[in-house]
């Protein structure tokens, strides 16, 4: 089974039915898979803090949300995470493309990668790092954990996890 399909199967099995995305080429396959599922409403966002607002509203309306985004978004969403998602105690699985890690071809991506875990730790956000393909086996448990504790939870998925960028 492909990683993309496994991830979306786990989202569906955990009743996640509202997903917002800001794209990344590493996440393109997952986003395509999300679009293929009738049970998921997919609404692209223009910026990740906007997407978190959508997710907050959807959750208060009775749907389980998730956001799919790049790790650069942590720089964009700190205020939203602190004063909306955490302050009102809302669950939010964040499937994050961890750019700037091993097998990254674009140097600038490293500049936010070096801050990503520190920022998440500063926010007390539970953080999981998928580096090898078998790490995806924990995704189902992470989703259950997120909706158990009503917190934002970060799943960082690096280029090695996704199989690199072709020949790079």
């Amino acid at each position, binding site marked *: 089974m492909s990683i993309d399909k496994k991830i979306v199967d786990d989202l569906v099995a955990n009743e996640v039915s509202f997903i917002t995305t800001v794209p990344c080429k590493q996440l393109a396959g997952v986003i395509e898979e999300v679009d293929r599922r009738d049970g998921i409403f997919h609404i692209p966002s223009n910026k990740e803090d*906007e997407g978190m607002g959508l997710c907050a509203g959807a959750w208060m309306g009775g749907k389980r949300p998730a956001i799919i985004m790049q790790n650069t978004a942590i720089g964009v969403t700190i*205020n939203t995470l602190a004063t909306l998602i955490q302050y009102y105690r809302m669950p939010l699985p964040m499937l994050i493309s961890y750019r700037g890690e091993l097998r990254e071809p674009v140097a600038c991506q490293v500049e936010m990668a070096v801050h990503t875990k520190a920022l998440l730790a500063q926010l007390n956000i539970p953080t999981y790092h998928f580096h090898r393909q078998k790490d995806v086996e924990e995704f189902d448990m992470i989703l259950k954990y997120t909706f158990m504790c009503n917190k934002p939870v970060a799943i960082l998925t690096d280029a090695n996890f996704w199989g690199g960028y072709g020949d790079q």
Partner: protein
Amino acid sequence: MIRSEILREIAPILRDQLVVCNIGIPSQELHAIDDQPTNFYMLGTMGLASSIGLGLALAQPKTVIVIDGDGSVLTNLGTLPTIGNNAPGNYILMIIDNGSYGSTGDQPTYTGKKTDLAGMARAAGCDNVVVVQDVDTGPALQKAIAGRRATVLVVKCDSGNAKMPVITMDPVIIRDRFMKAVAS
């Protein structure tokens, strides 16, 4: 009219609806005028009222009224294309456009100059954009509720704030009672 006078006038209309209210003085004014479990008060996160309301409207069938401001919409302009392409018929975005950042001391926003929020909303794909003067807010809002069609309602009014107390209710209580009202 200033925003608090509009809110006082439309409070009987808002009372039966789900309301997501913008951060700062707008939420303080609504809370003081007519606190309801159907009101979700934003205590932080400037700009996201329209997005929270859109997620809520997409997730369940009851009418959702977002009380937003010109400054907050300018903060989150990406919301307009998302609304224009996705908003369902139970979504009403009411922008109280007083041309100023009220909660921070009435500094002017660009909507008081050359920028036209209604025009931006239309260009973003919002099909049903209505502009009214403050005194006409009540009937325009009732029409939007009855129409069951996604609406962006731009209410032009004067700049100014009423002196109201800060909301001290715990955010989890605000959220919990709101979710119960949504589900009831």
